[in-house]
């Protein structure tokens, strides 16, 4: 018996198998129960011990080799088969998808979030108040009596409905009424911010009948104007992400604060763009001051013990400055193109 001959024969048959079935047939023909190699192995029993030894090990090697050849061929055939199947599953990968637009958060949302976080790190918790306010909360409690010229500073929307005092409701012209609501509700120390919608009847590219403000209020035994200054400078540094920030505090007037101040940030124009922080031009950022004792007394706070400061920041304005946006009207138009170009993705928000 020539092992080499059998090997040649079986190798040829394996190679010629073109399907897994054919190969299976070859496997049966050689390694099956009645296969040629199996038969040869069976026939060993008739041989002498000497021959058994030499032929047996050769035959075993043959069996292992054939087995491997078949296994490899099986693998090759499987790959071939899948590959030929895949050929029929080719799609036109270049067929363009329908247009889609990135879904994003509104820039004001991002600002709200940052404002809450930054002031949160300074110990301010969030407070809220309604948009439709009474004359008392929006004006008189804040030391803005009727016929006071300060009322003309703010073009007020009135509502066709009257409060308990018989005065028409107003759309709050600032977030400051939340100061009063909070002070009437909780005893000092009070340290809150109140972000929200505000309204004035004014409409052009820099004024919108609806806009956003955040109010801040800190009342305790000794909060002073130096603390106010430090707080607002720190806020601006963090919000605008400018460490080297040139600011200016200058006297101003709000009936509910005394002394009152406005804070400006220096800027310069670099490549036709506003760059905040340095330069010799100034941008008004916010109004602030020490809470007028009259206001504290209106809220039954003992002014011999307590004092503090308040501030109000236009959120649309600082958002526009931070991101170089120019027309406030586009904020509220619901234009998805605008949101896609100026909003924030989930990762950025």
């Amino acid at each position, binding site marked *: 018996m020539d092992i080499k001959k059998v090997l040649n024969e079986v190798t040829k048959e394996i190679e010629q198998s073109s399907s897994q079935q054919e190969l299976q047939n070859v496997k049966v023909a050689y390694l099956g129960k009645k296969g040629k190699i199996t038969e040869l192995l069976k026939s060993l029993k008739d041989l002498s011990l000497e021959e058994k030894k030499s032929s047996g090990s050769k035959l075993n090697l043959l069996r292992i080799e054939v087995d491997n050849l078949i296994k490899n061929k099986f693998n090759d055939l499987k790959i071939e088969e899948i590959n030929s199947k895949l050929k029929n599953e080719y799609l036109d990968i270049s067929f363009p*998808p329908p247009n*889609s*637009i990135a*879904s994003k958060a*509104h820039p*004001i*949302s991002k600002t*709200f979030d940052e404002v809450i976080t930054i002031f*949160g790190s*300074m*110990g301010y*918790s*969030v*407070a*809220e108040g*309604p*948009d*439709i306010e009474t004359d008392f909360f929006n004006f008189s409690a804040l030391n803005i009596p009727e*016929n*006071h010229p300060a009322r*003309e*500073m703010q073009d007020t*929307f*009135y*509502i066709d*409905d009257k409060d308990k005092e018989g005065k028409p409701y107003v*759309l709050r012209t600032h977030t400051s009424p939340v100061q009063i609501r909070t002070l009437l509700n909780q005893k000092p120390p009070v*340290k809150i911010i109140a972000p929200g*919608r505000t309204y004035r*009847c004014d409409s052009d590219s820099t004024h919108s*009948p*609806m806009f956003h403000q955040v109010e801040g209020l800190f009342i305790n035994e*000794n909060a*002073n*104007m*130096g603390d106010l200054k*430090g*707080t607002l400078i*720190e806020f601006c540094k963090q919000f605008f992400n400018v460490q080297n920030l040139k600011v200016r*505090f*200058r*006297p101003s*007037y709000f009936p509910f604060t*005394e*002394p009152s*101040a*406005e804070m400006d940030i220096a800027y310069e124009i670099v490549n036709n763009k506003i760059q905040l922080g340095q330069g010799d031009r100034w941008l008004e950022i916010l109004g602030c001051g*020490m809470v007028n004792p*009259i206001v504290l007394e209106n809220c039954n706070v003992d002014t011999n013990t307590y*004092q503090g400061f308040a501030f109000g920041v236009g959120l649309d304005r600082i958002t526009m400055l931070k991101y170089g946006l120019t027309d406030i009207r586009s*904020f*509220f138009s*619901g*234009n*998805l*193109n605008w949101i*896609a170009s100026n*909003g924030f*993705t989930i990762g950025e*928000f």
Partner: protein
Amino acid sequence: MKFSYSWLCDHLETDKNANEIGEALTNLGLELESLTDYSEYSKFVVATIKDFRKHPNADRLNICKVDDGTNTYQVICGANNVKKGLKGIFAKDGMYIPGTQINLKKGKIRGEISEGMLLSERELNLSDDHEGIIELLDDFENGTSAVEALKLNDPIFEIGITPNRGDCLGVRGVARDLSAKGVGKLKPLNFKKINQLEFASPIIWNINNDDNSCEYVVSRYFKNVNNSKSPEWLQKKLISLGLRPINALVDITNYITIDLGRPLHVFDADKIGKKLDMRLANANERILALDNKEYTLDKNTTVIADGNNALAIAGIIGGDLSGCTDDTKNVFLEVALFNPNSVAQTGRSLGINSDARYRFERGLDKNMVIEGLEYASYLINKICGGLVSKNIEAGKLENFEHKINYNFDYFNKTIGLELDPQKQIKILKDLKFQINKSNEKECEVLVPPWRNDVKNKIDIVEEIIRIYGYENIKQSVPSASIEEIDKIDNSSSNKKFKSIKKLKKTLISNGISEVITFSFHSIRAQEILKGDKSLKISNAISDDQSYMRNSMIFNHLESAELNFKKGFKNIQLFEIGPIYNSSQSQENILSLLISTEENINSIYKSEEFNFYSLTELTSILISSLNFDIKQFNILRSTSNTYHPGQSAELLMGKKLIARYGKVHPLIMEEFSKLKNCFAIELFFENLPIDSISRANNINILDSQFQFSEKDFSFLFEKEQNLYEVQRYVKGLDKNLIKNVEFFDLYVAKDLGDDSKSVTFRVTIQSKEKTLEEKDLEQLHKNILEKVSNKFKAKIRS
């Protein structure tokens, strides 16, 4: 408030330049809004058109030969007033033209070289006039600077005056404040009192008002005056501020209004009666005012009247018929103290913003009544001649006296800065406050009469720091205490904002963009969505913004339509914000709108968006708030915003948690461009804040034992609430029934009109062992029996 540098110097002796003064004004709280300084215009010079000819290639252009004193230039000019010998203002190649904001470049215009430009007033930002080039009337030499030729050497300040600083509505008041800041020395007023008051005024006063709207009035009668053009110095002053000179008498009153901040009025004495009244107007009384408009007055308006006729609206505006003209021979001057409140009220209700009203409603310096009278008399007498009467007055001029007890420590405590009492006193004295008694700790401060805004000791602190300088306030580093951090952690508003952020993230990751729309509703939206009547805005800007919204859906449909017009077919947007139930109730909700088009894309064909897609999205949103949609009661929505058959409401007890569905076709008729619109309204404020704000940590217990699935089909009554069935099945064995998933619904004629066939799959798994067949069979049987009994359902398989 506008004034020129030279005008300021009438009152202030200073060596500071305009920029330095501008900075000092801002630091005083008199914010410099603009400083118009034309010194850079000295580069533009006077030049003469020596000759000109028509441009060969352009009808309207001329080729001019222009001489600027040094050279002759060829200039192409399109102005229609080009003529030989005209003297204008010339700009050379390379110069920046402020009005057009461009740098001039030498070049060819229609083939002819142009080496410069003759300027119009608009090109110099002097006015809007662009009718022609500037034509100088005086004979300046060529090469003279434009600053000199156009008399632009007097910088103009414009400052913002806050409502408390009525004292700075006159140039003198501004000068006084600057002098306190150390910018210069206040000069004494430069006029002589008239000593010869020869006769009694033939016109007399009577104050007859019920609401004290006039405290005091004083007048003089001027006989035989000669009213004509004002002298040049006066005209120039008014022109420098953009005011038009009228005649000497009117110009004098305008001048004093600006100079001293003291409004006063002159009547033509021959056009009024002999007995003047200060009285309340009759209802519907009319007056033609100096602004040429007729006003209808009411019973709250104080008027100056003779007999029956209203002559002027007190403190606001004079009447046209009694005004002074060039022919005026006799004049009656009126200087009064009107009540700021009534002037403000009248001014507002009539909508008149006059210089007088502006000043009266801020309160005037009482001492300036007589000073104003004397100053005006002096100027009238000097400019118009004639004789001056004795004073005629009515009412009583009370002395202004306001004392404040002030302790020096109060400054330190408020500002956080130690300032020596002597320094504090010095500042107050510089501001002309009197210090009556003082010791180391406190003093008594007497407020000057022009500072009626200084009422309490905190106002004294402000005065001191204003002059001392806000830049000297030392900033301290803010920090948060443990108690404050604790408060933040427990604040329900903070929690709410946290949940809102979570919700927003979920929405954005689902491909929905955030918008913010106005809190308003149009009249139409109000009608359709039936908002509460108390939401009407009395003084709305437009019909589109007439009400406060009781829903956001209308706004979002408008946004969708806008985006549709921009080419978007599938629009998905949301807003989290307030809606208003009445003037006294608002809530923050999430409102989401999805507007879909018919899908024409055969390749990327996704399922048509429908009510069930919307339910799935609602479920995702509710999950992000740590709730499960199936734990709520579900009802058909009765809201007329939605399709009655394709909308739902989720309730927790009686609280509405969500409402969603297809937008009602009647509403869609308003938005003809849009096809299928779906909305979700999530009333997240009705969910317990502590549950929705905690971090998402849904506890899914993982079991390692084999699970089994079994499908059940039942025939239910048509309106059977399947959420209930689901909850019931799940509750049958809380330990073993892991999941109940509904996946088929069949409604057809053959089942009858009242039934629906529903199939669900129950997943059964134990946490302790692999269940045996008999356990499973028992459970299956149990489900079949219990469900069919409980819901009167027929078993289908």
